[in-house]
């Protein structure tokens, strides 16, 4: 009786084992290199919000659209971070694990799924921790409509995954794809309504922003979080369309190019 027979696993079990192994390997290289690794995941959005809050307090604003500045910023920064971190993580997922795709158990989808799991869990922990800190300082942090908040975050995740998959496929054709993405994400931070909301812009200029699905993410997130804020433009239909379209195209691009991931 060979010991191999003991280890006959179902496809599902094999996939779980592989994803577990990949997650541990990712956590080790990402956060293990310096012990403060996970601290930075937390400190970055906090510092960003802190600086923006400071800027706005210096101009003499303590609340925006009826919401305390710090909360106003945080609720927008966090989903934006989720999006802007998933893109580069997914686009480099295959390249960073190439050596491990040599094992038949590891398929191209596994590093993608592992990285998504890590990003979502990190997002969740950062969100809860930051809001905990805000509550401790004395802000009221309970979201007005938790279900809507989860829906917006979910759609953001689906959209980011789709675009990440497309970028991952694009990277096999052109190595510098990632650089372009990080170049685009910088101005996106400004036009995605993190430092302002639709109610603060004159209506005739809304057209400058409403094409941007991330603007809808910020608008809908604030609408969900604060009872005092009602978005005049944020649309679930528009964001949902983006999410479904990019997810579909992403899966297609990934499937069409899957041969390229394995053959180096």
């Amino acid at each position: 009786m060979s010991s191999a027979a003991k280890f006959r696993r179902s496809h599902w079990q094999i996939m779980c084992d592989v994803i577990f192994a990949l997650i541990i390997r990712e956590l080790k290289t990402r956060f293990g290199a310096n012990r403060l690794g996970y601290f930075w995941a937390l400190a970055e959005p906090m510092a960003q919000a802190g600086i923006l809050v400071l800027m706005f307090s210096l101009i003499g604003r303590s609340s925006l659209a009826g919401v305390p500045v710090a909360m106003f910023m945080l609720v927008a920064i966090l989903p934006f971070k989720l999006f802007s971190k998933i893109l580069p993580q997914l686009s480099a997922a295959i390249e960073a694990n190439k050596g491990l795709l040599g094992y038949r158990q590891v398929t191209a989808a596994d590093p993608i799924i592992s990285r998504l799991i890590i990003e979502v869990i990190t997002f969740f922990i950062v969100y809860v921790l930051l809001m905990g800190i805000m509550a401790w300082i004395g802000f009221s942090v309970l979201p007005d409509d938790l279900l809507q908040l989860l829906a917006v975050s979910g759609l953001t995740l689906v959209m980011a995954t789709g675009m990440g998959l497309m970028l991952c496929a694009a990277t096999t054709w052109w190595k510098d794809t990632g650089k372009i993405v990080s170049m685009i994400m910088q101005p996106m931070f400004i036009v995605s309504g993190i430092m302002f909301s639709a109610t603060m812009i004159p209506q005739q200029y809304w057209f400058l922003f409403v094409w941007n699905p991330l603007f809808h993410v910020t608008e809908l997130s604030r609408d969900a979080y604060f009872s005092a804020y009602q978005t005049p433009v944020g649309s679930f239909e528009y964001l949902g369309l983006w999410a479904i379209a990019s997810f579909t195209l992403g899966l297609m691009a990934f499937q069409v190019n899957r041969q390229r991931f394995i053959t180096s």
Partner: protein
Amino acid sequence: MIYFDNVSKYYPTKQGRHYVFRELNLSLPTDRNIAVLGPNGVGKSTLIRMIGGTDLPNAGRIHSPQNISWPLGLQGGLQGSMTARENVRFVARIHGYKDTKPIEERVQEFAEIGKYFDEPVKTYSSGMRSRVTFGLTMAFDFDFDVLLIDELGAVGDANFRKKSEDLLLSKYETTKLIMVSHSVPSLKKFCQAGLLIKDKQLHFFDDLNEAIELYEFTYAKR
């Protein structure tokens, strides 16, 4: 048995598709050791990689009820940014082992690379790399039915090669080999059957000597 159903494999080149294999239909026995023969560039490594599931055919399917190892060779299989220990742990985990400690120790003992075992693989010399890859396959007690070997001769120094060969021979009963090598004596030492790659097809011979004869007849410079 390893079954090839209509397997085709090509590489895109500037002059169009370069076919390495065209519509292979074959059942390869797994009860004896098989030597793969062919000159450089004819597709020996591609074949080994496809059997090992590292590379996919462009058309058709290769399948087998047996437990087949990953291709044991110089390239691939180790992630450069991770240490040898982390690589070993990873491989143990994807094979369903929960406790990786005994396997780590066995590979470490077999590879004999000292403190480098805990350094990133990208800092290794190619000899050290192959010590780890070879140690990984051998020290794991997977009891593979078939072990895929691409150029065993390239593994390490004389001392280590001796040790590896001894271990291979000791696993003879349970594990069969499919191996690629340019050294005919080494093929004769391990294998009974031969598989010749010719005209984008595979030709199987029960007797290795027949395969070698045809190989020399086909490819010898005259």
